[in-house]
């Protein structure tokens, strides 16, 4: 059955201060309600004040998404009562958003962007003793109240969850390159999705946090709607919530009509005029976007598109790491290969980013040079990566400490091999009878005895020498 999906994406803009006051935005390290002031607490007599850096960031995103940018933009009050609202209205943009009619291409398909606008986040609700449908009571933390949000609304152009995933990957990469979005921050990305099948009623999935959950929620919902249809039942127009524990969607409320928010223009703020000069400044400040970077990596460094994509989409810091390494060491393909497989695997396994790890381009290059010179084996290199991601010690140090140097012409290896041969007479016989596998067994033993430091080729050579 044909599926139609539209997305509403809310992203925290990574400025130092909130949107309408100068409270800091680093809520992860703060006590509840520590980062607040009369403005973001909605005290009587307080008034909002626009943080220009937020508009700068929003304009960069609008440009990156190929949007038409308004010459004049306003804020509006969206009025509704909810415990996470400091004023029981949200200052957002309604009539005249900052930007509209943009697009983002994913694999030759254009996903149209209906609008991009700026608004303030409400407070954080902590449901005690359950979730939104079952909690005994709710605690409110206003550290998040007033955090600047970018809202990106797409047309319902998605026809599969795969397309949604590709779009979000690309979008997140763009936002990350613009240094607007930090993936490591909790709840920095929230997605609402509108989904319908075969021209049926639209169901809204609200507040899906994090990338992975979006796909799960959509897949579940598609199946749910398909099942209803198969049974001859009608899909009702409603709002549902994604329960990340049960991986299912749960009905929140029936949507009989559109909520009436009684919008008025925010009378405490004046209009924002976006002049040509301002736009020119924004253009100058625009960093290189992911697509361009991928193309550049392929052209200039000659790495494969696949590798370039992985490096760039992993994150700007990862891409920068690649370039730093490439300044020090000219086998770019090698850098890419080792970054894309082993380094990335290690970072993921430890659940840290390249920035959080202790690896430096210099130490990474040192590692590659050690491999090139034959001083260590590929296997050893993998071990070293694990170590220096965690400790930051240079590969040479690690090799010295753990004595990981390759054993080749070493006496030690000769000793080990002689021992192996002596202790496994039967296996040697097997080999001499024609069993190739037996030789591998002996090599394996030798490697083991050498604590994996031996060069397999050399070990093979020596063994054969001794046997024959």
């Amino acid at each position: 059955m044909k599926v139609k999906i539209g997305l509403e994406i809310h992203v925290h803009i990574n400025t130092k201060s909130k949107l309408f006051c100068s409270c800091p935005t680093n809520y992860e390290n703060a006590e509840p309600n520590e980062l607040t002031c009369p403005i973001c607490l909605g005290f009587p007599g307080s008034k909002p004040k626009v943080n220009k850096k937020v508009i700068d960031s929003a304009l960069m995103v609008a440009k990156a998404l190929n949007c038409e940018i308004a010459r004049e933009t306003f804020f509006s009050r969206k009025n509704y009562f909810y415990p996470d609202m400091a004023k029981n209205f949200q200052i957002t943009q309604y009539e005249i958003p900052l930007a509209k009619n943009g697009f983002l291409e994913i694999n030759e398909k254009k996903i149209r962007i209906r609008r991009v606008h700026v608004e303030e986040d409400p407070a954080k609700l902590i449901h005690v003793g359950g979730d939104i449908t079952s909690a005994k009571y709710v605690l409110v933390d206003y550290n998040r109240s007033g955090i600047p949000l970018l809202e990106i609304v797409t047309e319902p152009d998605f026809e599969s969850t795969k397309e949604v995933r590709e779009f979000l990957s690309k979008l997140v990469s763009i936002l990350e390159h613009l240094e607007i979005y930090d993936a490591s921050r909790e709840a920095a990305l929230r997605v609402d999705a509108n989904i319908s099948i075969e021209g049926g009623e639209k169901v809204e999935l609200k507040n899906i946090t994090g990338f992975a959950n979006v796909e799960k929620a959509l897949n579940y919902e598609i199946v749910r709607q398909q099942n209803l249809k198969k049974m001859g039942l009608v899909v009702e127009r409603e709002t549902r919530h994604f329960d990340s524990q049960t991986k299912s969607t749960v009905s929140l409320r029936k949507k009989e009509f559109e909520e009436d928010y009684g919008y008025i223009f925010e009378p405490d703020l004046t209009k924002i005029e976006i002049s040509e000069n301002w736009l020119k400044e924004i253009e100058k400040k625009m960093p290189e976007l992911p697509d361009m970077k991928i193309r550049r990596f392929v052209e200039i460094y000659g790495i494969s598109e696949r590798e370039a994509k992985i490096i760039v989409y992993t994150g700007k810091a990862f891409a920068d790491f690649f370039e730093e390494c490439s300044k020090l060491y000219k086998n770019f393909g090698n850098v890419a290969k080792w970054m894309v497989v082993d380094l990335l695997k290690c970072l993921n396994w430890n659940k840290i980013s390249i920035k959080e790890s202790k690896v430096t381009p210099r130490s990474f290059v040192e590692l590659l040079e050690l491999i090139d010179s034959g001083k260590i084996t590929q296997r050893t290199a993998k071990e070293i990566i694990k170590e220096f991601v965690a400790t930051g010690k240079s590969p040479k140090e690690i090799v010295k400490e753990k004595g990981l140097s390759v054993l080749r012409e070493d006496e030690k290896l000769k000793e080990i091999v002689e021992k192996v041969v002596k202790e496994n007479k039967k296996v040697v016989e097997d080999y001499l009878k024609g069993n190739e596998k037996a030789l591998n067994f002996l090599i394996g033993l030798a490697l083991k005895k050498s604590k994996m430091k031996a060069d397999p080729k050399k070990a093979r050579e020596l063994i054969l020498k001794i046997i024959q």
Partner: protein
Amino acid sequence: MEEILEKVKKIQEKFSPFITIAEKVEFGKGKLSGIAISVKDNICTKGMRTTAGSKILENYVPPFDASVVEKCKREGAFIIGKTAMDEFGFGTFSTNCAFSIPKNPYDLKRSCGGSSGGAACLAAVADFPHIAIAESTGGSISCPASFCGVVGLTPTYGRVSRWGLIDYANSLDKIGCISKTVEDVALLLSVIAGPDEFDSTVLNLPKEDFTRYLIEDVKNVRIGVPKEYFEVDEKIAKIVWDGIKILESNGANYGEISLPSTKYALYSYYIIAMAEASTNLAKFCGMRYGLELELKGNFDEYFSKVRGIGFGEEAKRRIILGTFARMAGFRDAYYLKALKVRTKIIQEFKQAFKKFDVLIAPTMPIVAPKFEEIEKLEPIEQYMMDVLTVAPNLAGIPHISIPCGFLNGLPVGMHIIANHFQEGKALRVAYTFEKVKR
């Protein structure tokens, strides 16, 4: 110091202009040294209870000073107390106050006007140096000034920072001054006006000394007389005309003008004001500050109960009407239409000020009514009392009400209205009139 507090106590017993009186008085240095400043209770004073005349803020003590209060303190003033007002500014007679209802100094059975009733009352009776900080949305400085026989100055919208003012209607609220003399209001305006980074709607104009406009000279000043404003009690009209004639005999000249959009001003005003007010008052829901009840039921049930108890009837009426005017299906016909009418009114004034320096009219269509008369009025009849003050307030142009005479022993006010940023012209005419009218 004790003297003043004693005087204040006696005034409060007799006239009830205060909601809260300062516990101690501190003298400082500056332009306002030695002057008691009273603050209308919708303007935040740090550490001093601020209620906006409402039960929902009965025990609210703000953690910060409004910008105007800070500025006064820096110039050595002392804050003598918070004056009574209609709840959130909703009223013309200060009778919608959940605490004291101020009584007219000329007749204790009559209203002081509103919503800055307490401020005007205190200004009239204080027998120590005093200037009142007041606030106007649709005429709340001019009306009580007129009823109490004192001078009320409402500056251009955007002259004075609204940071710390508990909002009624953000696009209409202006902080101003009430006192016995024009000189006083000019002095206080000089202190409280000026740029402020905490209010985005404040004009970026340099600080001005408004006392330099206190010149006794109206030669060749062109006075416009809007005929629609004189469709009031003929006795009041005559008193104001006499005032205009006095100015004429001192060298000014006058001409009649028609402002046809005047008849729409009241409706445009109330729709815009109520629409904005209904959003401003949403924040009062029993969380973070103000009236709170036992936490029972879900959020909707809880906040509805708090608001049901905390808000007075007029507040509820305006919230409902204001919300209605913003609803889909009505928004275009009411809220957006009202905004268009407002633009028309502004344009009409702009045209008038091409021909005239100031416009003069009666401030109020009546003199101070008795409390028992007010009780009999329908809400809409109450709203109609604002008919002469709403248009200049909608347009955000500066205006001064100055005592002009008496009718049956009760004060009549003359309204001097000037173009945007032309407080100087209005002050000059007012000052001259004050001097020559004897």
